[in-house]
Structure formats: structure tokens, C-alpha cells
């Protein structure tokens, strides 16, 4: 009954979405306020309906209603409640429902918070959101319905992949979708601007908060996914350049470029057509990512069979949702020329360089991910592309961007003084050289590239601080005045500094992986392994029972120089329903390095294989991402984005004047 309600709610939502696609658009072209405002109501209505549908599905999972096909396939009565809930989106149908939940959430947010937008722009934005929604509601209802019933209902479900029963993995899709789907708003703004035929500084200002919000969420989502892979898969790796990972990284790279080019549109009225294109491409990459991971065209040799009919439907959606706007772009963009002229060496020029390198890096990931399909289709060799290719080419392309990062904010608009900027950055260069030398002299083994990487991180960090210190005239005026300036700096300025610092932290974390050490030994109870100054003694291994698994639980005492550091309990778990074994890795972190211990299968005669890794600075990889997202949030909280207040006051005054 409840499931049927959910199903019905989805169907209603489709109807509303279709209405929203058409009516406000018509209203905007005619200037009819009533029709334009309808977009807001339908957006909120759709959101409410999808919340209902999602709640219905969640209810089915929580009550273990196995008469629903998706629940029977993906859940199990012995699963802990938390994972029953997160299991709602751990499969194709449920995750598509999460997708539209977030899509309609953003639509409703535009309706609620976008009251400061000109009504025709708002109407057009909501209309485009409506079109996207209609496409995905149709996709769900016709090919991926989560509310399909099974008759007769099985007594219990077939459970869920044990690897997925993890909190980190459970919250990673919502963040990712907030990112992917959040970029749909930037996309809608871009398409609305093309329909309207106008892009100006105001447009860039309105689009910025949505782009920032989506970007922050995607940064966190990607970081969570990477961190999950690190602590779950047991090899200490955190990025495999897997097609699914790349599907999230491509929109992130282009989204970062979009964030930066929108600044130029806002400040200097330039790069307009380019920014519109980026907004379309960012969301297009999100959609292409959705296609790639759900259609089955990009699986490794022995992955699970996918459903090609779903793939065909998504491809159709792609063609309409991306092809349409790109053709509109070809038609309208030439008339959208901007005014701002700038010299190559300038803030704008630096942002152009940023965009050039980021989009090339994104193109690299696209090439590497899609090339096997391309070659297969043209009848060539079957090849595979893995980390060796990506790390090499991506690394070569992103390095110039990292080096250029501190220069950009120090250059003036329209025409910048590179020499002056360089002089100010001498202290950053000094810091970089000092760090590199220190590492070269004191850290063993010697690793040239990694040393340069750490130097680069120092360069970016100190360079960002140099820019801030310029703004507050640190050491040049009285300290009290500096403090006053610092207090009055716009939040967006802090956002930039913090986000760039985050990049430095992540770069340092990545560089330091050259100094990771590993020990893989077969040990008996009582034996010890030494690694990086730690001593690990396997005390015992005993069987334990979990809610839906049996496990062998090791007790490992970690000491350093004789002093107790911690006791760790790695496990090797066996899930009887899925007939799968996984290892439960234990990690001890002091935020400067990780001690990573895995207990692998024993030989049945008291010997166990213990894998121990010591990874310096690895937590900084994800901490850096967190700092980047924090910077984004700072920017987002900048009062200047609340344009609504200023516009409302002006309109009130105009209204008063008109009444005369």
C-alpha cells in the first residue's frame, strides 16, 4: 500500500515536471507573471512528492518488505538497521530515486531562495530543471522502478554486498549526488541565459552560490569515496583511476574551472560564452558519468552484467539534455560577446590559464576513460588503460597549474605586473626550497619527484598566505590596522585562501606516499613485525560472531621504543549469505601518518599473514579536500551573494515611486 503511494507520487511528480518544463517558459517569453511564478510552486510540489516516494521506499527497507523486488535483491532481515536505511540507495533503482530527490531539492531551493532573481530568469531556470526532472522521472518509472512487486514475496532477501555495509560508503553517494545534481542548477542557469540571449555580471553572481555549493559537495563526496576505498579494500590504495572514480572526477575538474571563469564574467564581463559552455559541459559530464556506470559499456572484463535497455534510455536522455543545449549554444553564443579586454599577463589571463589546464586535465581523464570504447568500436585492439597512464599524463598537465596558482591572485585585473608579483612570492619560493632541501637531507629513501611535490605544496601554501598578507598589509602597517583589515575582508577572499591552502595540503599528502613502507609477513601468535620505528606483536587470533558474519579477530599490540602506542584488532570476515570474505582493516592515525594493519587468511595451523603499512601524511589527502570544501563554504557564506536584499529594496523604492 505504502509502496503504491510512493509509485503514484513519482507518477504525479512526472506530470508536475512536464508542467514545469513548459508553462514557466511560455510565461517568460510572454512576460506573464502568473505563469512564471507557477514554476516555483511546481518545483516545491515535485520535491514534496519525491520526499514521499523516497520515504515509502525507505519504509519498505526498514520494515524488510521483501514483496518489493529491490528490497528482496538488496536487503536482508539480519542486516543492521543503519545499513537497511543506507541500503535504500546502494543499488541502481534506489540511487536513481536519491538522484531525483536531490534534483527536486535543488529545484525547490531555487524556488525558495531565488526570490531575488528576475522572474523571467527564475522561470526559465526552473523550466530547464523541470525538463531534466521529467527525463529522469520517465527513466525511473519506465526502466528502473523501485516499487515493482514480487509475487509471491520471498521469505528473506538476498542481502547486500558486505563491502557496502559501511558508514563511509553509505554517506558518500548523497554527497556525490549533491555535487553532480547540484551542477544541474548551473546548467539550467546557462541554458536559461542562452534562451534569454543575455549573460551579464548579475547572472554570474547569481550562478556562483549554486556552483559553489555543488562543488563543495562533490569535493567531499570524492574525498569520502577515496577514503572509503583506502580503509576498506585493504591495499592502502586510495585512487585507482577506475571508470567509476573518473566519472566523478571529470565533472569536478571542469566544475573547478567553471568556478574560476565565472569570476571573470562577474568582474570583467569577459569569457561569457566560455563560461556558459563550461556550465553545460560540467553537468554533461555528470550525466555521461551516470550513463557510463549504469549502462554497462565500461565494465572491466569480468564485471556484472548490466541492462543495455537502461543504457539506451539514458543515452537518449543524454542526447536531448546535452545535444539540445549545445545546438542552442552554437546558435546563440556568437551574439553573447563580452566587453572586457585584458592583457595576457593579468588576473584574467591567469584564470584563462587555470581554465586551459583544468579542462585539458579533464580531457585527459575523458580520453583515458573512453579510449577503450573508441578503439573497440572502430574495430581495433582491445586495450586497457590504468593508473600508469593516468598518473603520468595527468601529473604532467596539472603541475604547471599548481606552480602558477600563487601568481594569479597577486596579478591585477586587466593588466598585471608579473615582476612585482614574483618579488612578493620570493618568500614562498624560499619556503619551497627550504622544505625540499630539508626533505632531501633528512628523509630516507631519497625520492626526487616526491621531494619536488612537497616543495610545491609549500610553495602553494606560503604563496596563498602571501596574497592574504598583501591584502591586510601584514607587517607594513600597524598590527591593529592589519587586524581590522583582516576582519573586514570579504568572506570570499578567505574562501579562496583556505581553498588554495587545502590544495597544498592534499598535494603534500599525495607526494608523501613515496615514503610509505610495508611489511607482509607470515606470523604466529607472539611474533613481532617492525616497521618505521613501530613494533607490532600479534598476541592472538580468536573467532568472533557479527550480526551477519563470522570473523577471525586478531589482537595486535603496537609499541614504539618499548612504550605502548595502541592495541589494534584487524579482522578477516566471512559473510555466509553472499559466500564472500573481506578483511576489516584497522588504521591508527595521528593525523600525521597512518599505521595500517590487515589480517589476511591463516593457514589453519596457527600462522597468519599480517600486512602492515606505514603511510606518512596520507590523512592530509582527505584533510586537504575537507579544507578545500571549507574554503568553498566560506565563499558561499559571503553576504554579497545574498543579492536578494538589495534588489528587494530597490524594487520597493521603484514601487513607491510608481505609485506617485
Amino acid at each position, binding site marked *: 500500500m505504502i509502496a503504491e503511494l510512493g509509485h503514484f507520487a513519482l507518477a504525479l511528480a512526472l506530470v508536475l515536471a512536464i508542467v514545469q518544463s513548459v508553462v514557466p517558459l511560455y510565461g517568460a517569453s510572454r512576460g506573464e507573471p502568473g505563469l512564471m511564478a507557477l514554476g516555483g510552486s511546481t518545483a516545491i510540489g515535485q520535491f514534496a512528492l519525491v520526499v514521499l516516494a523516497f520515504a515509502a521506499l525507505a519504509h519498505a527497507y526498514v520494515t524488510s518488505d521483501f514483496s518489493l523486488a529491490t528490497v528482496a535483491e538488496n536487503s536482508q532481515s539480519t542486516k543492521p538497521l543503519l545499513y537497511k536505511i543506507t541500503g535504500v540507495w546502494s543499488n541502481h533503482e534506489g540511487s536513481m530515486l536519491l538522484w531525483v530527490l536531490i534534483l527536486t531539492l535543488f529545484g525547490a531551493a531555487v524556488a525558495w531562495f531565488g526570490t531575488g532573481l528576475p522572474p523571467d530568469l527564475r522561470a526559465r531556470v526552473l523550466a530547464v530543471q523541470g525538463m531534466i526532472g521529467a527525463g529522469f522521472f520517465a527513466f525511473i518509472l519506465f526502466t528502473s522502478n523501485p516499487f515493482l512487486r514480487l509475487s509471491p514475496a520471498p521469505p528473506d532477501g538476498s542481502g547486500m554486498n558486505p563491502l557496502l555495509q559501511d558508514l563511509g560508503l553509505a554517506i558518500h553517494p548523497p554527497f556525490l549526488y549533491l555535487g553532480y545534481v547540484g551542477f544541474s542548477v548551473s546548467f539550467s542557469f546557462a541554458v536559461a541565459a542562452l534562451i534569454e540571449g543575455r549573460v551579464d555580471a548579475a547572472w554570474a553572481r547569481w550562478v556562483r552560490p549554486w556552483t559553489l555549493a555543488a562543488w563543495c559537495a562533490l569535493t567531499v563526496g570524492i574525498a569520502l569515496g577515496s577514503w572509503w576505498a583506502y580503509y576498506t579494500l585493504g591495499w592502502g590504495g586510495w585512487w585507482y583511476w577506475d571508470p567509476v572514480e573518473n566519472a566523478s572526477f571529470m565533472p569536478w575538474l571542469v566544475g573547478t574551472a567553471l568556478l574560476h571563469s565565472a569570476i571573470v564574467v562577474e568582474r570583467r564581463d569577459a569569457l561569457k560564452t566560455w563560461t556558459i559552455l563550461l556550465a*553545460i559541459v560540467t553537468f554533461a559530464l555528470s550525466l555521461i558519468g551516470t550513463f557510463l556506470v549504469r549502462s554497462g*559499456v565500461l565494465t572491466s*572484463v569480468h*564485471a556484472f552484467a548490466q541492462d543495455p535497455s537502461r543504457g539506451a534510455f539514458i543515452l537518449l536522455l543524454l*542526447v536531448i539534455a546535452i545535444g539540445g543545449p549545445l545546438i542552442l549554444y*552554437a546558435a546563440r553564443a556568437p551574439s553573447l560577446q563580452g566587453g572586457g579586454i585584458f592583457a595576457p599577463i593579468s588576473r584574467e589571463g591567469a584564470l584563462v590559464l587555470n581554465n586551459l589546464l583544468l579542462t585539458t586535465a579533464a580531457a585527459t581523464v575523458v580520453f583515458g576513460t*573512453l579510449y577503450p570504447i573508441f578503439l573497440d*568500436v572502430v574495430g581495433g585492439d582491445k586495450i586497457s588503460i590504468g593508473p600508469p597512464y593516468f598518473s603520468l599524463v595527468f601529473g604532467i598537465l596539472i603541475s604547471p597549474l599548481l606552480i602558477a596558482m600563487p601568481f594569479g591572485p597577486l596579478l591585477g585585473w586587466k593588466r598585471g605586473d608579473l615582476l612585482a608579483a614574483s618579488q612578493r612570492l620570493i618568500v614562498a619560493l624560499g619556503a619551497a626550497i627550504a622544505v625540499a632541501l630539508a626533505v632531501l637531507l633528512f628523509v630516507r629513501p631519497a625520492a626526487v619527484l616526491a621531494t619536488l611535490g612537497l616543495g610545491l605544496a609549500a610553495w602553494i601554501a606560503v604563496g596563498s598566505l602571501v596574497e592574504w598578507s598583501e591584502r591586510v598589509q601584514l607587517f607594513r602597517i600597524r598590527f591593529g590596522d592589519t587586524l581590522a583589515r583582516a576582519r573586514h575582508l570579504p568572506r570570499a577572499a578567505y574562501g579562496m585562501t583556505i581553498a588554495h591552502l587545502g590544495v597544498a595540503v592534499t598535494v603534500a599528502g599525495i607526494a608523501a606516499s613515496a615514503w610509505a613502507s610495508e611489511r607482509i609477513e607470515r606470523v604466529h601468535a607472539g611474533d613481532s613485525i617492525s616497521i618505521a620505528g613501530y613494533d607490532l606483536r600479534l598476541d592472538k587470533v580468536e573467532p568472533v560472531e557479527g550480526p551477519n558474519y563470522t570473523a577471525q579477530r586478531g589482537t595486535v599490540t603496537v609499541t614504539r621504543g618499548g612504550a605502548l602506542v595502541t592495541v589494534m584488532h584487524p579482522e578477516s570476515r566471512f559473510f555466509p549469505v553472499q559466500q564472500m570474505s573481506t578483511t576489516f582493516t584497522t588504521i591508527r592515525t595521528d593525523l600525521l601518518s597512518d599505521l595500517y594493519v590487515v589480517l589476511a587468511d591463516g593457514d589453519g595451523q596457527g600462522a597468519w599473514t599480517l600486512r602492515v603499512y606505514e603511510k606518512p601524511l596520507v590523512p592530509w589527502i582527505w584533510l586537504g579536500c575537507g579544507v578545500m570544501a571549507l574554503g568553498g563554504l566560506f565563499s558561499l557564506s559571503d553576504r554579497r551573494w545574498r543579492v536578494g536584499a538589495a534588489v528587494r529594496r530597490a524594487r520597493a523604492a521603484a514601487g513607491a515611486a510608481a505609485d506617485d
Partner: protein
Amino acid sequence: MRRLIYLLPAAAFTALAIYFFVSLSRDPSVLPSAMIDQPAPSFTLAGVGDQPGLARNEFAGQVVLINFFASWCVPCRVEHPLLMNVSRELGVPLYGIDYKDKPEDAGKFLSELGNPYGRIGADRDGRVGIDFGVYGVPETYVIDKAGRIRLRHVGPLTPADVAKELAPLVKALKGS
């Protein structure tokens, strides 16, 4: 001219969409053999139980089918009934290679389901499999009279596979 540049993104996307469309109808889960038209690797394997084994030079000069199987392999059971008849149907010998298996288990498997193979080699460590480019079981190879691998079929054989893939090739190879 400038207008044409603005058309580039749409053009690039169209090309991409076409590739995606074509790739939808392809099966990404099967890896084509790198050994097609290469000579089959030479090997000498002991037999299962007290049966004689299988060596490469024993079937030189004939068209043969080689099927990699194992007692622990579930799809092998699915294709087994078909294997019982395929040798007679196609008029060529069918040899089996027991991949990464214990001979006792293989013996039990065959006595339970029947033995379709003329000869069987026990590839206990999987080395012969690797030399053939095997990456899972079951896999079936067609070897021609000159000893070259001409076809590899991954996964269990179905009657359609035998009729459409194996039969015409075997017929052509036998005739030459």
C-alpha cells in the same frame, strides 16, 4: 567561420553519442584471445586418476576441440550435457584440460556426470592454462591441423554457439 567554431562542442558530442550507441550493443565482458592464429602452446600433462594424460604432439595433424574445465566450476556443469554429444556431432575429438583442480575431485565430477573427453590432461598449477591465455573456466578452443588456435569461446557453450560458431569453422578446417 567563427560560427563554425561554436558548433564544435555539438559536433564532438554527436561523435561521442554515436560511439556510446554502438558500444551498447557490444559485449564488454569477453576478452578476445591474443593467440588466434598462433600455434597452440606445447605441453605434456599427466592424466586424471590412472587414465593416460594429454600432450600437444599427440594430436598434431588433426582438427581438435580443447575444453578447459574444473570440478569446482558451476557453468561447466551447465555445458556438460552438450559436451557429451559435441564430439560426435562435429566429428572431431574433444580433449579436456582439468584446470587448477584436484584429480580426485575431477574423477568424481566425471563419474557423476559422464566423461565426454577422449583424453584429459590435469593442469594442476594452471600453467598450461596461462600459456593458452585462459582467464577463467570454461573455455573452449578449436585447433586446426597445423596446430594453430583458430577460435576461443569463453563461457559455457550453448547449442547456438555450437551451430553458429563451432560447426562452420570445424567443417571448413576439416575440409582443407
